[in-house]
């Protein structure tokens, strides 16, 4: 870790906080991306459009940022599909079942001092740490 990484992480965090605050101020919504994306696929909610707009914003952001901050992305990685499938299924199922992910619980919920979000964040952090620990013991990072 160096101070440049810390600085960028902190500045990025400030921007994330600002983006989430804008969504609350103008649209009255919590910027929980798992929930925003998850309710897109039910196709029957009356508030489909703002969700779609937000997700399109994220995707177009990636498209533009690819050239500005190429080092921020992992573009060349070719992880086996079955691993990505397990990871994706668990993240999708878990964030919907637990009503939130890193953004909804980890940022918005903790900021609102929600007991649920604090419990959820501690839980998924711990689960992530244990998972990476096990994967390391299995030699996944060698």
């Amino acid at each position, binding site marked *: 870790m160096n101070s440049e990484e810390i600085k960028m992480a902190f500045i990025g965090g400030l921007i994330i906080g600002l983006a*989430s605050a804008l969504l609350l*101020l103008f649209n009255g919504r919590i910027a929980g991306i798992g929930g925003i994306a998850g309710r897109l696929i039910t196709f029957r909610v009356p508030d489909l459009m703002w969700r779609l707009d937000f997700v399109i914003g994220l995707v177009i952001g990636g498209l533009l940022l690819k050239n500005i901050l190429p080092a921020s992305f992992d573009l060349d990685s070719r992880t086996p599909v079955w691993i990505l499938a397990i990871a994706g299924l668990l993240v999708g199922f878990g964030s919907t079942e637990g009503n939130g992910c890193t953004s909804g619980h980890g940022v918005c919920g903790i900021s609102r001092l929600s007991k649920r979000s604090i419990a959820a964040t501690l839980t998924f952090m711990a*689960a992530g740490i244990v998972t990476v620990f096990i994967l390391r013991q299995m030699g996944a990072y060698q």
Partner: protein
Amino acid sequence: MNWQITSFISGLLFSVGLAVSGMTNPKNVTGFLDITGDWKPALMFVMVGAILVYATAYRIIMLMFPKPVFEKEYHLPAATSIDKKLIIGSVIFGIGWGIGGYCPGPALTSLGANARDALIFTLFMFAGMWAQKIWDARSVPNQN
């Protein structure tokens, strides 16, 4: 129409924050979770920065704006109890996060950047969300 623009801008700005912070690279995320190995604690500061701004803004907004600018009311989570569903869901989410290094926001942003892994991850993420809704409908039969 205005509410569509603000939602889009918020998503766009969110992706900038994710990319600047390094959250969009799953190797940074697994490095952050790898506390007994080659630990990279930098991503802790993403949360510090985001919470600093949002916790302040949340209180100011709630104090000064009785309702959102383009909406009739705020849509805030109503649940308060820590139940089994919350914890089990968070455990499942955390395991997937540890395996892939992607969570929903960075996955969607990286998909826009044409990262091959993020595209595959996101497809299965939506499948997982879909599976949860089917699961939920089965286990709570009287819910609409």
